[in-house]
């Protein structure tokens, strides 16, 4: 204390000498203020308190005792404030546990953990599983999750009254151990007024390594989520505006026919598989007829400039895409898409991923035996005018590619990887395939030449996912090395490395305007990165388990992410908030896809279903009445059950026909 005084005096003298009048004044004020609470020698109450505190440092039983008391107090608190107080319990619990481990009371820590883990099992089971493995001080240091937990503070929003209640309790019971933990690790954001509702405690669920504040800060950054200038869609819209009246009425007449064509297409769907290909075209035509270029109703998204130099498109390609766009079916909650399902048979549990080209004509499968196989569905449909069974057995057709071992196959085999292939993606025009593998490489294949063109080496660990950009040429990869990288086809070194995730980057997806990529990670967050400068511009927190799939809405405003538990979350990109979780799947959501005009979301899961969700309702809501967390706004439209076939990938064609692929698995 005297030492302190000496320092103070020294500082004051220094300030006086230098002539810092204001600072000197401040110091003096500070000293005067401090003097009151510091005077604890005269306050017996406080002295006792501090005495207790110092004593209990070693007394591990205090934690157990204190926590159980706090717990029972919380459970018996007022209903209105209970859920807020309950949020305090989890951080207190894990930090008490880690403190005990840190102090070397391993046995007690374990019993403590086992005694109370049930309480948090529901919300935090995966975190608990991780923490369960912490058995010594060194583990705390080594395990990133534990380390980051101990270094960071948890933000808890709490209303004034709950806060008062908690303080009162802590003071009254003098449970210093708990007080210590709370002071050390919890940052209360006390708000006046009513306690917040139960539903928006999503932020508490994920304890991310970086401080909550930085996440919030990041999410303040500006995002230009608008679509690209001069995109084909835009051009089409402009053209649509110039449609003459006669053409418009014609469109309306066609609309009247839609019902007929619908019936026809349904009938044709029921026929045998022999005319499959033909029917597909018919159905396409039928659905295409009912489409109308309805330019006026789509809310005009703002336009942004591309930050990347974009590849040029040949006029023929442009024409064909425009043609597709004109014939697009306008899907809605009343007009659901047709779904064509590609089933992989006899995969012997070896299929790791599948991908479908934009027009649905090519299907690629990545296998655990390092091979990539590509099927040309158009050819399969043609040969022998065949039924499915024939196509399966009839391997003598001359169409088939002759493999190196002389056998004839219905697919093109791409060999080159030396580890399981975890992801494959088609370029927008279907002339290239990228595949990523556990051998840490990404390979570029040409479907025209049936050959490997480039091998991209850069990642140090298995590459979990690779995705072509919407315009082609560029692609993004996600890896076990906790980075995502941006590449261009003509360079063998990555253009950008996005680092920041605390665990594996499991999936990656491009934003519609190619200026951003989104990455989903095992750290339960989704991040949005600026492709140009490689900075993280959004952190989406809310998932409770590893993120497996991502999709961006075509209008660039929304993002959907699916996780291991079957939860799908819709995010508003500009605000970084979750609009609503979509619950319905019971197992891993392997894939999500937006329909081309963004009114429907399709999701495919390991529970052998494709689910269609209505997302128009949310998109149509004006921005000013933005209220998150209304579960009625997004709804499940349809569940399409497959025959014990988990759905691996989904792809909407430009005309809004939905393609799905999965491997038939007998022993689920």
């Amino acid at each position, binding site marked *: 204390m005297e030492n302190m005084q000496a320092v103070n005096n020294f500082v004051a003298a220094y300030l006086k000498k230098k002539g810092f009048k204001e600072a000197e004044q401040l110091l003096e004020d500070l000293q005067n203020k401090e003097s009151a609470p510091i005077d604890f020698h005269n306050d017996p109450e406080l002295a006792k308190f501090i005495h207790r505190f110092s004593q209990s440092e070693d007394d591990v039983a205090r934690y157990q005792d204190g926590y159980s008391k706090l717990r029972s107090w919380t459970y018996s608190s007022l209903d209105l404030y209970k859920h807020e107080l309950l949020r305090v319990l989890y951080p207190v619990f894990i930090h008490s546990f880690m403190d005990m481990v840190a102090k070397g009371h391993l046995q007690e820590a*374990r019993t403590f953990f086992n005694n109370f883990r049930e309480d948090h099992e529901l919300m935090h089971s995966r975190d608990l599983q991780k923490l369960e493995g*912490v*058995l*010594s001080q060194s583990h705390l240091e080594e395990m990133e999750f534990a380390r980051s937990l101990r270094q960071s503070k948890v933000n808890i929003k709490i209303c004034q009254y709950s806060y008062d209640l908690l303080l009162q309790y802590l003071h009254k019971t003098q449970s210093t151990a708990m007080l210590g933990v709370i002071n050390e690790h919890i940052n209360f954001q006390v708000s006046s007024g009513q306690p917040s509702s139960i539903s928006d405690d999503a932020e508490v669920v994920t304890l991310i390594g970086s401080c909550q504040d930085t996440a919030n800060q990041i999410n303040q950054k500006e995002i230009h989520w608008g679509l690209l200038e001069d995109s084909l869609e835009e051009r089409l819209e402009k053209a649509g505006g110039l449609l003459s009246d006669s053409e418009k009425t014609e469109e309306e007449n066609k609309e009247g026919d839609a019902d007929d064509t619908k019936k026809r297409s349904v009938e044709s769907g029921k026929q045998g598989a022999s005319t499959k290909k033909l029917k597909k075209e018919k159905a396409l035509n039928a*659905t295409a007829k009912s489409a109308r270029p309805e330019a006026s109703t789509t809310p005009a998204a703002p336009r942004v400039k591309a930050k990347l130099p974009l590849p040029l498109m040949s006029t023929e390609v442009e024409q064909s895409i425009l043609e597709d766009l004109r014939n697009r079916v306008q899907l809605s909650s009343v*007009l659901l898409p047709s*779904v064509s399902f590609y089933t992989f048979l006899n995969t012997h549990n070896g299929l790791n991923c599948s991908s479908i080209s934009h027009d649905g004509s090519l299907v690629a499968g990545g296998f655990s035996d390092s091979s990539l196989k590509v*099927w040309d*569905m158009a050819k399969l449909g043609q040969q022998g005018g065949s039924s499915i069974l024939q196509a399966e057995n009839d391997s003598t057709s001359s169409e088939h590619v002759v493999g190196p071992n002389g056998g004839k196959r219905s697919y093109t085999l791409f060999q080159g990887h030396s580890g399981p292939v975890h992801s494959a993606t088609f370029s927008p025009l279907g002339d290239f395939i990228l595949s990523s593998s556990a051998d840490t490489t990404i390979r570029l294949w040409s479907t025209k030449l049936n050959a490997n063109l480039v091998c991209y080496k850069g990642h140090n660990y298995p590459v979990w996912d690779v995705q072509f950009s919407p315009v082609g040429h560029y692609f993004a990869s996600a890896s076990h090395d906790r980075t995502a990288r941006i590449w261009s086809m003509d360079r063998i070194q990555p253009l950008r490395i996005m680092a920041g995730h605390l665990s594996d980057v499991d999936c990656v997806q491009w934003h519609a305007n190619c200026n951003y990529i989104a990455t989903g990670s095992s750290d339960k967050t989704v991040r949005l990165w600026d492709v140009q400068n490689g900075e993280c511009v959004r952190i989406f927190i809310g998932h409770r388990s590893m993120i497996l799939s991502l999709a961006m809405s075509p209008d660039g405003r929304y993002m959907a992410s699916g996780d291991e538990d079957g939860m799908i979350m819709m995010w508003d990109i500009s605000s970084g908030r979750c609009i609503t979780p979509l619950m319905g799947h019971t197992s891993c959501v392997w894939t999500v896809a937006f329909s081309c005009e963004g009114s429907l979301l399709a999701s495919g899961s390991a529970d052998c279903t494709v689910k269609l969700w209505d997302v128009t309702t949310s998109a149509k809501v004006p921005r000013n009445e933005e209220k998150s967390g209304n579960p009625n706004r997004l709804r499940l439209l349809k569940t399409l059950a497959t025959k*014990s076939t988990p759905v691996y990938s989904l792809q909407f064609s430009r005309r809004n026909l939905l393609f799905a692929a999965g491997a038939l698995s007998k022993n689920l």
Partner: protein
Amino acid sequence: MSNVPKEAIEVIAQSIGITNLSPDVAIALAPDVEYRVREIMQEAIKCMRHSRRTVLTADDVDSALNLRNMEPIYGFTSRDALRFKRAAGHKDLFYIDDKDVEFKEVMESPLSKAPIDTSVTSHWLAIEGIQPAIPENASVEAPSDGKKAEYKDDGTSVDVKLPVKHVLSRELQLYFDKIAEITMNRSFSVVFKQALLSLATDSGVHPLVPYFTYFIADEVARNLNNFPVLFALMRVARSLLQNEHIHIEPYLHQLMPSIITCLVAKRLGNKFTDNHWELRNFAAKLVASICKRFGHVYHNLQPRVTRTLLHAFLDPTKTFPQHYGAIQGLAALGPSVVRLLILPNLEAYLQLLEPEMALEKQKNEIKRHEARCVYGALLRAAGLCMYDRLKMFPSLLAPPTRPIWKSNGKVATTNKRKASTDNLMQQPPAKKIATESAMGMMPINSMQADVQGAASSFSNTVGGSNIGVSSMTRPLSNDNMLGREVGGRVSKTSTVLAQAWKEDTDAGNLLASLFELFGESMLSFTPNLSFHSSFD
């Protein structure tokens, strides 16, 4: 403290040759081992997820080890999940069954088949949001909420239909064997009656229905010459149909052919003494009862039955017993069927039948008898139909005709008695009249048949033509006292009909022409009793 006990560390240490492991080391190692195992598992789960699987395999663990730059564990490379066995006597101890394989055996065993190569097929999972009912799609259950929920809950597909094994209890098997035995061998015994009663009332018979229907179908086909068995089988069929507790609809398709066979088969039984007429009557009743009971469920049931029977009836190459069966079957189906299908063809058929009944033309006694039986069946069918019509329009025979009716009542009754007592004696002359009159009546009659099928708006013209009929028949029947009397009355009736109740001319007309064809015996079917009681 950790899940890995220090004893495990000690065992492992010993197994790799470290004998002097200090206990402190074991205690320190145990938690670390657990931590490392957890770490490996965490990575393995990631690998599993990226292989789009929900089941962890040994490969995933190997990949995880690989990620940590460790050597994989050899010897567990199977794509399928490992099969753990519970160690006997321990609740929580499992092991992988690792059989010793004789190397020689492996060498000598034939090469196993190469696995089928991967292929891709496509189908429509949904068309505009609706799942087509094709074999590639999961069977769409009726959207009952309970089912859906169940589907969601366990996450696996419930719709994989396992073949349901039909289990018959021993008692039921015994029961079936017993009934089958009695039916085949002891159909005249009292026990058989008991059995029939049991079949008709027992609610527990239901599991046996498919067996019984098969039994009946099988045995009928095999025992067409064995009259008692056929009859017994038909009785069994009737008992089954009578049973309210069983759900026999799905098996009707199997049962019907057998019954129809017993109705219109060429030969039933091999002895002359076999009263196959009775069997046919019985089968006819059975068919009619089935049509009545299930006709509304299976709309094409009765049309199909009638078509079959009509074919038999109209085919002149078929034998008389077959015709008899067909007529009986049709008659049993009700008067409207008779009116629609038999009466239009009656005229022509009687022409065919006539010579067969005549003593002088058909020498074969049996054939003659058969023909008479057919005639009797026709008479009965037509008569029942007439009875029905007259009952529907009681006013047809209201006051104006009453006196005639009264006076004729006596004639009718005597006639009936005669017909019943000496049918054989009576019929030939009656037939003669009928044919005589029929000769003249033919064209008109056929026209009448047309009208029956057509709308009633034609009744006026029919009435007119009927007058013509009567006037034509009168001179014809002159030589016969009885015929003239009848003809006169018919004409009187029909003229009255034509004038007064035009919408009912159909019935009157019918009576007239039937009378022309069958003569007096027709009158026995007129519902005189009821009229008398109502008028007197």
